């Protein structure tokens, strides 16, 4: 009974958040230049929330630390960039291709990676991610090397507000699909492999295959995020593939709370928002961003390993008592 009540509460909160997000650009559009900047920024937040949520399928639910998730973000980004700039493909088609190509890349890399567990999995994903980064960096004729690919065409109907809405819709659909996956019997099996690998094997789960499928799904959604991000900035560059971007997504999961489904999206938004607030206060604060981020991380790891969502739940439960 309590559970379903909490369920209704969550649905209501969710609906309110979605409604607020949908209205937001129309309000921001009234503020001219600054408003446009904030629309751009919230679009980025939505895209990065999608990226962090996709990583959490592996990290929080699969219990496997991947330092190479940015590879699939980057593959999605370059897919959209190359298809639109060099092949003249339209945006919708390119956005459909992005998760497919990223999923294929995840299938190839994941096939090797899921053979290993724990630290070795983390290091191998890092190695593969950096291999892709280096390839993008060196293959000048195809990827533009460290210059990246600039001037990706922008369809006419896409003003910032429309693009924001497009990203929001794609985000919501992806979010719900991922939620369904997590709550399906497949998702429960994945959680079992996190909790007890041996028991999962004993009851006949093909652990490697499940982990591989999970890895591919996560990679494909990261590809969508990468594709959307490329069109937002209208360029793709090697930085998209770099492992520090994977690190950013891991931080987002940790700060938000990786044992909850909404945690990573919240964590990612908190971090981007904090970064921009610091920038508004004083430019010098951004220069020591890594130090600030490091200290936040230390605090979370040591005192609140369940992140913002965990903290919130703890506080509300206490107040009920």
């Amino acid at each position, binding site marked *: 009974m309590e559970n379903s009540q909490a369920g209704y509460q969550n649905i209501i909160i969710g609906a309110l958040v979605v409604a607020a997000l949908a209205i937001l650009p129309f309000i921001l559009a009234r503020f001219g230049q600054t408003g446009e900047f904030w629309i751009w920024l919230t679009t980025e937040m939505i895209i990065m929330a999608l990226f962090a949520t996709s990583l959490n399928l592996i990290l929080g639910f699969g219990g496997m630390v991947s330092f190479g998730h940015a590879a699939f973000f980057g593959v999605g980004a370059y897919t959209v960039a190359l298809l639109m700039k060099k092949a003249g493909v339209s945006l919708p088609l390119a956005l459909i291709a992005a998760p497919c190509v990223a999923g294929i890349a995840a299938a190839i890399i994941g096939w090797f990676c899921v053979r290993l567990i724990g630290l070795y999995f983390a*290091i191998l994903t*890092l190695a593969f991610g950096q291999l892709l980064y280096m390839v993008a960096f060196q293959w000048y004729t195809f990827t533009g090397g460290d210059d990246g690919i600039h001037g990706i065409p922008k369809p006419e109907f896409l003003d910032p507000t429309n693009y924001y809405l497009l990203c929001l819709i794609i985000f919501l659909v992806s979010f719900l699909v991922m939620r369904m996956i997590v709550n399906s019997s497949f998702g429960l099996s994945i959680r079992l492999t996190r909790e007890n690998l041996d028991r999962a094997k004993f009851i006949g789960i093909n652990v490697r295959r499940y982990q591989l499928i999970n890895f591919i799904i996560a990679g494909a959604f990261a590809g969508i995020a990468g594709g959307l991000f490329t069109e937002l900035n209208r360029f793709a560059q090697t930085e998209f593939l770099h492992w520090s971007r994977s690190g950013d997504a891991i931080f987002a999961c940790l700060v938000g709370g990786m044992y909850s489904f909404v945690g990573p999206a919240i964590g990612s938004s908190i971090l981007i928002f904090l970064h921009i607030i610091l920038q508004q206060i004083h430019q010098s604060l951004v220069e020591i961003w890594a130090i600030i981020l490091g200290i936040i991380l*230390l605090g979370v*790891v040591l005192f609140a390993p369940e992140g913002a969502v965990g903290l919130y739940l703890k506080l509300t439960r206490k107040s009920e008592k």
Partner: protein
Amino acid sequence: MGIEFYLFILINGLSQGMVLFIVASGLSLVFGVLRVINFAHGSLYMVGAFLAFSLSTLMPPGSLFSFLMLMLLVPPAIALVGLGLEISLFRRIYGKEHLLQLLLTYAVLLVLDDVCRLVWGGDIRNVARPEVLAGSVEFFDLFLPTYNVFILAVGPIIAIGLWFLLYRTRYGNLIRASVSHPEMVGALGVNVSRVMTATFMLGCWLAGLGGVLMAALANIDLGIGMEKIIECFAVVVIGGLGSIGGALLGSLILGVGVAFIQLPLSRAAIVFPYFAMALILIIRPWGLFGKPER
């Protein structure tokens, strides 16, 4: 380009490999005892290199004495930094999830790297080699840079020293016992947590020493910490986590491999560590010298 040229490349690769070994053996040692992969190890090495640079500007340049002073002073300084880190942070996460450990050390990396940037800035720097080591030595009609030969001597000394420490002293026995049966060692009245702290400091000392040697071997900038930690990962993966002999073999393979691949494919050489690492993880995940876990 005859045999001299290739020998020169070989010496160069080997000396890079030796510095890498000194740093990577610290990482491997710390992992062996603490079961924590320290992402910040490369940053400690970088702090060591920049500290050596700063101290060298205070001393008369080119004298052997100042360089030996650097080798004596900087590694203990880094070990002290390590002491602070271990007591205040690392100690709290032993035995916790891998993820939390990785992220904690990654957070330390972020902070240390940024502190380095604030203190020393983005310029490329180096430490002048002492005059005695700046020239070249004749070796069967070949002229080899003395400093590289010097490093080729230091590397094995460190390797033998570590071996002696681990296998021929009481402290080494305690370390090895703490690796396999920490609770048993504790039950016998040994302060295991002090063994861990000492080992962590030793690992940092090695990172600092690597930093000093590197500062005079090549140019240093803010990227070297990140670069070295990835190379160290590759080394310990190739050699086997926690194995000193494996770290030596892995470092030399990597150093020489990169040096020779650089000849025909200058841009592909930076891919080599990742490629070697991925290959070993796929074929023999526990490394050449390691043992499979579980």
